[in-house]
Structure formats: structure tokens, C-alpha cells
């Protein structure tokens, strides 16, 4: 099967300063291959180089070195865009147009008949939940609505590869769920989705594989489970104590009380000891759950180099 996206040593330097220009490397030798039909998550904290990568792939900026191919065609080849959709980060569109006019404008670049354009526009507006606001000028749109119209224009021409830069940003919970449904729907249709995010649960839920980028460098590629499982190291126990019963002395320091409930965090190895203590105190266990790290923790550690070893393992040692 042909690779959907082949990125080979993609590097981008920005030059800062007015008189004495100093280079700052935003992306450092990124090499990645994404197969057709994959939903691929591009993870990283702000400033990691995610948007730079997407802008390079879309030809909005030019690489300092390296290159990439999409569906076998070099990114410099404009015809490649016939099969590619793109949602920019924090999208902004012509505010003097209505949503329907904007989509019609964009659809005209694909030589679709008027009837076909009308049909597709109606269908994507429906899909992103903007049918009722289709004839409202975009200047009256909220940030979330702009994000939705951004998604609509990215998939309007039924591209084989869709690039989404932070597709969930600015969306409320309902909007995020709908965006996730759209991505899953694209996957069902066999399309390739490459999306950047700094929200780990989104990646966990949607992606076949994820890549982690920090400071312009690829830290690892793997399935979301691999990325997250590295970090599961403690558990949280939620419990209540009967009247007259006291906390076991060993847990006194670790416990926090909220109303009648207590909460403790224990390392996985000490879970049974803690549960024994709670049984002795006749505590009623409400839940025991894995404590997954926040993405922030995850990235902070990566930046600190602590996870470097794990990252190498995820990618099978092939960074």
C-alpha cells in the first residue's frame, strides 16, 4: 500500500533579529511515514513544531532542508492539493462571506458542477452542525463556529488525506464530540487523518498511532496506549470511614478528606498494603482507579529528558 505521507528529514530554521539574524530551529530533521487510512496524532506542547510541520506540508512555509511527499507527490506539486484537506490552527476566514458562500468559493477550485457543489455544501454544513447559520456572515461567527466551518472546508472536496491543526481547540464539549465523530467517520471511509493536538485523551480515543514532538525533535512514535502506559505508576483509592473509625496511621499523611470521603494516592506496589489497612479500619471502598498523568506532566518530563529512554522504546529504538 502506498504511504499517505512520507516526511524525510524535514527541517525548518527561522531567522530572528533585525540586523544580526540568528537562526532558531523550529523543526529538526523530522522523518515520519503515515500509511493510508491511518488516524495519526501529532502530539506536543505549545511551540513543539507541530504547526510548523503542518505549514511546511501545506506549502505555506518552505523547508530549510529535507522534504515530504503526500500520496506520492512532492509537497511542492500544487496538484497534490486536489486530494488534501487542511484545517489551519485557529482558522479565520473572509468575514464578509456567509458560510455557504465561503464553502462555494473554496469548492470552485475543484471544478465541481454547481449542482454537486450545492449538494456537498449542504451535506458538510449539516455534518458540522451549521445548517441553521449557513447564511450568516462569518463576522458574526463565534470561535467554535469558525472551527466548525474550518472543519467543513477541510473535508468539502472529499480529500484522501486530511490535515487538522488542533481541531478541538475552541470547541465546547458537544463540539469536541462532534469533531471526534467526524474524524472517526473519515477513518471509516478509509481516509488518512493527520491531526495535531496537545490534548492526550483526544489522541488516545482516536489515533492508530501518535508521534510526540518536543522542541522541534521527534521523541517517539507509537500507539497511544504505549505512550500513556509508561506513566501509569500510582493508583487512587476513594473510601469512606464508618463513624468512630480512625484512619490507619500509615495512611494519615497521604489521605485528603472531602466531606465524608477520603482519597489516597499510593504507588502500585503498595496498593495491597493500603487496602489491608483500610479493611482493618472497616473502610468502605468506593473506587480504585489508575492515575494517568496529565499531558503536562508527560511533556514536562520529556522536556527534562527523563522520558527519553521510554520514548526510544516506544519507537522501537529507531528515533
Amino acid at each position, binding site marked *: 500500500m502506498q504511504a499517505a505521507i512520507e516526511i524525510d528529514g524535514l527541517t525548518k530554521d527561522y531567522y530572528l533579529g533585525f540586523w544580526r539574524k540568528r537562526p532558531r530551529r523550529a523543526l529538526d530533521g523530522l522523518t515520519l511515514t503515515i500509511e493510508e487510512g491511518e488516524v495519526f496524532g501529532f502530539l506536543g506542547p505549545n511551540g513543539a513544531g507541530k504547526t510548523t510541520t503542518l505549514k511546511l506540508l501545506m506549502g505555506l512555509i518552505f523547508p530549510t532542508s529535507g522534504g515530504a511527499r503526500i500520496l506520492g507527490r512532492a509537497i511542492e506539486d500544487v496538484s497534490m492539493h486536489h486530494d488534501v484537506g487542511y484545517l489551519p490552527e485557529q*482558522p479565520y*476566514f473572509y468575514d*464578509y*462571506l456567509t458560510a455557504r458562500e465561503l464553502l462555494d468559493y473554496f469548492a470552485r477550485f475543484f471544478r465541481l458542477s454547481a449542482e454537486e457543489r450545492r449538494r456537498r455544501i449542504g451535506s458538510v454544513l449539516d455534518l458540522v452542525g451549521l445548517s441553521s447559520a449557513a447564511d450568516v456572515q462569518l463576522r458574526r461567527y463565534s470561535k467554535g463556529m469558525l472551527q466548525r466551518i474550518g472543519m467543513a472546508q477541510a473535508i468539502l472536496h472529499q480529500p484522501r488525506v486530511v490535515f487538522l491543526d488542533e481541531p478541538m481547540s475552541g470547541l465546547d464539549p458537544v463540539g469536541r464530540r462532534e469533531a471526534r465523530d467526524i474524524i472517526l467517520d473519515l477513518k471509516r471511509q478509509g481516509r488518512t487523518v493527520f491531526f495535531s493536538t496537545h490534548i492526550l485523551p483526544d489522541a488516545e480515543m482516536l489515533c492508530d498511532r501518535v508521534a510526540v514532538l518536543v522542541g522541534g525533535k521527534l521523541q517517539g512514535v507509537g500507539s497511544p496506549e504505549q505512550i500513556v502506559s509508561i506513566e501509569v505508576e500510582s493508583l487512587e483509592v476513594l473510601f469512606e470511614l464508618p463513624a468512630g473509625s480512625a484512619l490507619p496511621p500509615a495512611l494519615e499523611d497521604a489521605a485528603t478528606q472531602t466531606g465524608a470521603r477520603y482519597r489516597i494516592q499510593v504507588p502500585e506496589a503498595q496498593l495491597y498494603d493500603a487496602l489491608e489497612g483500610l479493611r482493618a479500619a472497616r473502610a468502605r471502598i468506593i473506587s480504585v482507579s489508575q492515575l494517568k498523568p496529565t499531558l503536562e506532566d508527560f511533556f514536562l518530563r520529556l522536556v527534562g529528558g527523563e522520558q527519553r529512554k521510554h520514548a526510544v522504546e516506544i519507537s522501537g529504538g529507531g528515533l
Partner: protein
Amino acid sequence: MTWVVALNTFREAVRDRVLYNLIFFALLMIAAAVLVGQISIGIEHLVIVNLGLTAISIFGLVMAIFIGVGLVYKEIDKRTLYALLARPLRRRQFLVGKYAGLLLTLAVNTALMTLGLAVALFYVSRTFVRSDLSILVAVYFILLKLALVTALALLFSCFSTPMLSTVFTLGLYLAGTFSTDIRSFGEVTESPALGAVTKFLYYLLPNFNNFNAIAAAAYGRQIPLILVAQNTAYAAIYITLVLLAAAAIFSNRDLK
């Protein structure tokens, strides 16, 4: 592709209310010309044509510069260009599309203002004479001038802010209007180096003086066809070169 961008640029301009204000003021000025004409006994026709064509030229210039300098800059600054360039659209096609769109806007506005002038003339003279045809030629020259100014504004818009682009475009327009004087200055000076520089500038700067046929139209003089052909060819060549330069700059620049 190019035409799709052009039509959207036209639509943007049409939906911009500033434009209607400009047309309103231009028509107001033509109306004022009628009033001034009425108190200029015997030379109403001359005054109306002179003031009317000057109004068309000035308001056209204001539009060409102020919309032109924002043509590309606004799209980059507001990032509306991102989604657009993700279509199968070359950057040079986008540029030419934007240019053609503004040119279409200017042509429609100039046509409207010319219609206003024609109404004013008819109001005063109750008839049109054959020599009035030179008014149309003068309007055509104004359009050629606007096309050239728009190309320059677009060129600056590719790498500079609207404020600076306005200064550059206006500066070039003024220098181009007085390019003949610059050469004459070089000819009377005794320094051969200065003479060479002014001659070089004369050929480099766009010669806007050639496009001024307002006086000829006002006096009803016939404008020779050869001048029409010369001006058309000059504008076409100069515009092509400016657009090629704009495309070369814009096609290689990183969008922020």
C-alpha cells in the same frame, strides 16, 4: 482558478462600505462641477470635463492605493490565505487573481463615475458632440494609470505593511508623474554623473505623465490613436514586469 480569486476580490470590494462613500464623494464632486460650470459663463463644458475627470482620477487613485496595499497583506495578516493556498492554487495565480479582482472593481467604479460625468455634461449641454469621445479616451488612460498603480501597490503589499506600501506607492506615483522634470533637471545640470542618474530614473520610473489626457479632453482635442496604442503597450509591459517581480517575491516567502 485565477478568475475565482478575482471574482471573490471583487465581491469583497463591493461589500466594503468605504467604497460607496468614495463613489458618493466622486459623484458629489461631479455635481459640484456642474455648479462651478454654471458660474463659468461660456466655458461650462470645459470646467465640467476638467473637474469631472480629475475627480475620477483622484478617487480612482485613492481606491487603487488603499485597497491595493492591503490586497495580499490582509490575507497574510488575517491568515485567510492559509485555507485558500491549501487548494490546488499556485501563489502566482492567487496574485494575478487579486490583481484582476481589484482591476475589475476599479473598472466598474470608473464606469459609474463616467456615467455621472456624462449625465452632468448632458444636463448642461443637452447634447453630446463628437469631440466628447476624447473624454472616453481620457477615462481609458485613467484606467491604464490605475492598473499600473494597482500593480505597484500589489508589489509592495507582498512584502511590506499597508502603511509603508502606501508611502512607497504614493512616492512612486508622484515621482512617476514628474519623471519628465527629473530628466530635464539632469539635462540642465553640468554633472554628467547626475545626468546619467536622472536619465536612468526617467526610464526606470513609471511615466504617469503620458496618461494625462484630461486637458485634451476638456478642450475637445482629438487624442491620436498612436498615443492610445503607445500607452496601452507601455502599461501592459510595465504591469507585466511589476507582476512578475511580485510573483517572484511572493512565491518564495514564508507566510508568518
